[in-house]
């Protein structure tokens, strides 16, 4: 195991360690977070606790990436970049 892999593993196991939203609140506020971010604003100021939750919850991070990807390009009819 490399040092990077160990660091990622420790981060995943311990989570963000900061105040974070619940999954439910994350979903409720995700559209705002993405719109603020894509319009050049400060999404972390607009939605406190979102960034920490996205760092700790792989499923919500996945949802965030999906929404950001679609609003960025899919809405305009561009083909999707394959998900990792």
């Amino acid at each position, binding site marked *: *195991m490399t*040092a990077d892999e*160990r*660091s990622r*593993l*420790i981060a*995943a*196991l*311990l*989570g963000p*360690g900061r*105040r*974070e*939203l*619940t*999954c*439910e*609140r*994350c*979903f409720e*506020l*995700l*559209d*705002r977070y*993405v*719109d*603020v971010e894509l319009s050049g604003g400060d999404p972390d*100021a*607009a*939605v*406190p*606790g979102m960034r*920490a*939750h996205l760092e*700790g*919850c*792989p*499923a919500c991070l*996945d*949802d965030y990436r*999906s*929404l950001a*990807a*679609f*609003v960025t390009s*899919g*809405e305009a009819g561009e*083909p*999707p*970049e*394959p*998900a990792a």
Partner: protein
Amino acid sequence: MTEPVAGLRSTACEPAAAAPPSGALDADSRRWLDELALEGHARDDAVLRLHELLLRAARHEVSRRRRMLPHLRGDDHDDLAQQAADDALVAVLAKLAEFRGDSRFTTWAYKFALYEAAVKLRRRAWQDRELPLRPDAWPTFASPALSPDEHLAESELLSALRAAIGEQLSAHQREVLVAVTLNGIPIDVLAERLNTTRGALYKTLHDARKKLRRVLAAQGFDLAHGTRENA
């Protein structure tokens, strides 16, 4: 049909206060709300256009995640997208009164379609697969060997973390932590198998992490820097 986004429900974690709404509705969002508030054929037309919007988002998501389900045919992909759009339409119409104009209406609506598509795809990808949940299936990471090239403090931390997972967590906390963070099982897939919700499982994960942090801090680890005070 699943209850839309019900799987997220929980009272987990430590809710952070959201900032107030961003302001007045933009013209396009206002138009959507006005048209969906009409009656008769005018409303039917608006609902039809909303479904088309949701279907476009669901198809995009299914296409984006096509690699998850390489064995599915094109018709299967479109069936999944249609189901996701149908479920998302139900959710959007049911929650219309909750839309506060904090984002564009379309961004708000898209998230339901993308969520429904993603959940369906993840569940389909994991159906008929055994989830590695047995206690002897964890932890999958190797014991950290120390070498001059490695960071000693981090290796110590990982060793302590490994011990704490085994000794301090409840069986359920350990199962959820290992499944989600080490074995990469999607939390909504795990929630379905365990007959619970994604939000409830995340609460378990959050509590487990909190306990691990507390235990490690008591052992002198500075988790912000990966160091140990008395090392």
